[in-house]
């Protein structure tokens, strides 16, 4: 009699972003394992490492994987993948799997942000991505966290303690950094500055979302979705409560794995 392992059909999705890389192994509808690593400077190595970690967790070897789909900024470098699919399609697919009713998904990643209108069935209906500027991305938060001598993970809670948000008017990350330094020098409470930073990023993404058209329910995925300050600011800007998955960072990898499972067309 064959073991459950032998009967399973394992597939994997690998999402290689500019800052982090994720791998996720799926068996049917069941998430068997997943991993998150820093991408570093070599996307291919990052993909291999992420997959290796996930396989180890699942107690599997790579030859047990029927199909691998790569997505994200570094997808082209994942030569061992059977297919490369953009993160737009993967995010739509991934969020649809977890929350079939979601019609809009917002993703704020390390160096880009996107809004995808999701059709029934999980295909993207329309999308918008940030234009060449870091101001609506995780990079913006990283820069500001460094200036304020906070860990990225501390930003959300800090923002939520603020009674008001400081005004960050610069639309450029570099100039906003100067502005924040000035605010610090003037004695503006750190919480208010962080709340202002969150609001700034939310407004930038909100404007992009309006181009696509925001239909609720709205989900928020990507690493920045862990920042409760940005979540609250984005909810205020969009005027809708946001659905934030438990593991917002793995949605792209999940979508890629689902596409690997379901065949050729995303």
């Amino acid at each position, binding site marked *: 009699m064959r073991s459950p392992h032998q009967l399973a059909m394992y597939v994997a999705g690998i999402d290689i972003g500019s800052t982090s890389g994720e791998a996720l192994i799926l068996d049917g509808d069941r998430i068997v394992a997943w991993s998150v690593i820093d991408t570093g400077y070599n996307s291919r190595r990052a993909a291999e490492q992420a997959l290796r970690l996930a396989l180890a967790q699942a107690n599997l070897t790579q030859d047990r994987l029927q199909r691998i789909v790569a997505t994200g900024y570094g997808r082209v470098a994942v030569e061992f993948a059977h297919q490369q699919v953009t993160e737009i399609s993967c995010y739509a697919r991934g969020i649809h799997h977890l929350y079939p009713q979601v019609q809009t998904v917002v993703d704020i990643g390390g160096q880009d942000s996107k809004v995808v209108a999701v059709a029934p069935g999980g295909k993207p209906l329309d999308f918008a991505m940030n234009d060449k*500027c870091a101001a609506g991305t995780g990079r913006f938060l990283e820069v500001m966290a460094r200036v304020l001598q906070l860990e990225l993970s501390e930003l959300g809670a800090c923002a939520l303690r603020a009674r008001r948000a400081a005004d960050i*008017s*610069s*639309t450029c990350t570099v*100039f906003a950094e*100067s502005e924040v330094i000035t605010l610090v020098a003037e004695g503006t409470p750190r919480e208010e500055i962080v709340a202002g930073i969150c609001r700034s990023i939310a407004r*930038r993404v*909100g404007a*992009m979302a309006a181009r696509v058209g925001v239909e609720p329910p709205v989900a928020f995925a990507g690493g920045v979705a862990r920042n409760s300050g940005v979540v609250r600011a984005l909810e205020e800007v969009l005027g809708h409560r946001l659905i934030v998955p438990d593991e917002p960072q793995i949605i792209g990898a999940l979508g890629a794995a689902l596409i690997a499972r379901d065949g050729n067309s995303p």
Partner: protein
Amino acid sequence: MGQSHLRESAPRRVGICSAGVPRELLWAVGCLPVRMFPTAAKPTPAEAYLPRNFCSLTRLLLASYLEGEAPPLDAVVFTDEDDATRRLHDVWSTCVNIPVWGFLEVPRSGGLHAVRRFAGLLARLATEVAEHTDRPLTPARLRVAIELFNQQRRLLTALRQRWLDGRLPTPAYRRLRRMALTDAPESANDALQAALDAADHDTTASQLAGGDSAPLRILLLAELAAPASLVRQIESNGSRVVGEVSDLDELSVNAPVSSDGDRVEEMLTALAEAYLNQPPGPRLRAVSQRIAYVTHLAEQRAAHAVICAYSKFCDLYLAEYPVLRTELERVNRPVLLLELEDDALSGQHRTRVEAFLEMVRASEPSH
């Protein structure tokens, strides 16, 4: 004939964003023409409808109305002033709940054909707007309106002279000019007259610049208006502003418009002629004329230097800049260009202004 017949109902507030729209015309058909100024709203909400790399003044205007921060309007009238305004007109109705009552094409020359065409377009605009106000254009109404705004021109010209003589502080002068562009002309004229009387009775010279040396005299160039923060910085730095070539000040119809004639057509032609022959802005592409005007003004006002305070991505003004700068420097007037996202000067901009003024001061023999 008083104003009473014009005040049967309160005038409808109609926003305009061009110095090419004859305010007399709108007043005569029962509207208060309100020049649209941006508020302190951030431009980000406008980026849902206009690209980020788009005239910042236009984005700020749109953002002001999207955020509901701008003074209320009953309608707007757009023009084909430039690419930015045309595209603003295109997107306006999709995102702002203020109706568009007209689109006025303003010819780009003051020649005979252009004047004739413009007079016809003004008649059409009057008809379109009057459909909403139910106050058709008549010779009497138009004559009264022209005379009212001529009175305003006389008052503003006098106030400008008081300002140049140092009897009216710059912030007050600019506030009065802005009020003239946004408030009902009758009450605006009363306020202007009161300010003129006050300036004439004030025998003390206005302390516009401190220090022992004569102030550095700066001519400003801008589109709608130079930022108040820039004017403040200049005048707190031992310098003074001696002119502003913008819609707020010099780029307007300064001379009285003729209200002669019994027919509307005659007065519309006079209006067309006056508005098409205002001091030249870059929209005419009459480079020699524009340069001659700016250099003459700089000479007349004994300006030591020029600061161009333009909106970022405002192509019409930025594209003429290289030649304007070359010609001004040829007549020993250094030029500083600022490309501004909004009215608040950033630290970088403030530093540049300060450095520029220091540089000019150091090179001026009298300083």
